[in-house]
């Protein structure tokens, strides 16, 4: 199967690979997927408590090229957004940007799940109500 140029670019030059200190209250961590499914994503955000703007985002992903590209792209998009804006990122935006084929849509779903999980972790740490479960139509 041929990968799109954007997937190859993110795979070859992944943005924001790394780890934030998950013990800090400003840092939210989302860990989604499972090793036996062949995909695990960890996405972290560091939020400015005053402005609610995401200052930094990091990821680490175990998975195929599309999974790595989806999470790399997500970290790029997250930086500079407020937490509320970040929630508006839809998996289909990722599919479109990376030209993911149908068999790889689950990678984008996983990235969206990782964003929500990271935001949720941040909200819980800061005494906010957790987000409601979002039903996926896939």
């Amino acid at each position, binding site marked *: *199967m041929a*990968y799109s140029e954007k997937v*190859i670019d993110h*795979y070859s030059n*992944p943005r924001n*690979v790394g*780890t934030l200190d998950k013990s800090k209250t400003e840092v939210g961590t989302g*860990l*989604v*997927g*499972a*090793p*036996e*499914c*062949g*995909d*695990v*994503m*960890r996405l972290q955000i560091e939020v400015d408590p005053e402005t609610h703007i995401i200052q930094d985002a990091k990821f*680490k*992903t*175990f*998975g*195929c*090229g599309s*999974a*790595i590209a989806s999470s790399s792209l997500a970290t790029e998009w997250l930086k500079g957004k407020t937490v509320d804006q970040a929630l508006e990122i839809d998996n289909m935006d990722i599919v479109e940007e990376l030209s993911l084929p149908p*068999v790889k849509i*689950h990678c984008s*779903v*996983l990235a969206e*799940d990782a964003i929500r*999980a990271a935001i949720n972790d941040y909200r819980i740490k800061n005494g906010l109500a957790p987000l409601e479960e979002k039903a996926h139509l896939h």
Partner: protein
Amino acid sequence: MLKLPVYLDSNATTRMDNRVLEAMLPYFTEDFGNAASRNHPYGWKAEEAIDYSREQIAKLIGSSEKEIIFTSGATESNNLAIKGIAEMYATKGNHIITAVTEHKAVLDTCKHLEKQGLQVTYLSVNREGLIDLEELAAALTPQTILVSIMFANNEIGVIQPISEIARLTHAAGALFHTDATQAVGKVPVDVESMGIDLMSFSAHKMYGPKGVGALYVRRKNPRVKVTAQMDGGGHERGMRSGTLNVPGIVGLGKAAEICQTEMESEMKRISELRDYLETSLLKLPESYVNGSREHRLPNVSNISFKYVEGEGLMMGIKDLAVSSGSACTSASLEPSYVLKCLGLSDDLAHSSLRFGLSRYTTKEEIDFAIECVEKAVVQLREMSPLWEMFQDGVDLSTVQWAAH
């Protein structure tokens, strides 16, 4: 200069040997006759070529030339052997024994027969990929007509104890078929001394052309017959109708001859290269060879690199043509069933690569492969949350995964 990508997928197919191509060429053009045409020299010439090919093949596998039935490849041979025996010996019994790590051409043929009412026992394999002879002995019944166990596995190269399986099978009065697609031409195969009654193999795994293979069918002690699965002109002693693929068969014969004369020196060289590749890659921490290292083809190495996903790894080694146990691209997302049968967890099965060396593999290519894989594994582990957790001493089996 290396030709990229470096081809290390010889269990999928092999490059055809130029000597094979040369032998085949006249039979496409000048010597185009139908081997079944008995009335003119065109037919005689073709028949002569076919007979010579039978001799070449018979020498390689220790059979008589009359015991070779030409087919379109190993899938057809497996179908013909198993369905043909089930039909021919239906009055004798209705039970077949095979193993869980067989190729789909055997497994799906057995499933097809199960739907028609036959009983099939699927033997399990141990961590090494080997069947348990005691389990086989216990599974044999007076109703058993056929035991079909592959000679060498296509994913891990593990070689089953063929002679012992044949002995147990015959003691119970059943016939023994083996899918030897990966073994013929690579390791010594002797149908007489090993007690094989039927054997499938294919030209393109041994530097011959695609679309041609053979089924060995024993003619003496005992005389074995299979019911034809295609009706027609009654070629191949009535067991497989259809005009013979003369150039292909000439190619199979030539490929067999070359394998026979060169096997010993070739396999020594290839196994040394394979061992070098394997020892080098095992220096990466948390990497494991899948299947028995002792009972194995000389040209295969299947290695799992823990905490790295196979498909992601393949993308990182795009200058290598290898195969992965991860099937992330397939609709099922299921990793290799063969690796799972060995008891590998899904994540380890997802993390595997199969390297298949060939006659054309050079030391330079192996050095290049080692460098590519090392680099990609290190890079992907840097990117892997699982590797980080492992480094931090987290027991991954205790983590609550949010599977989606």
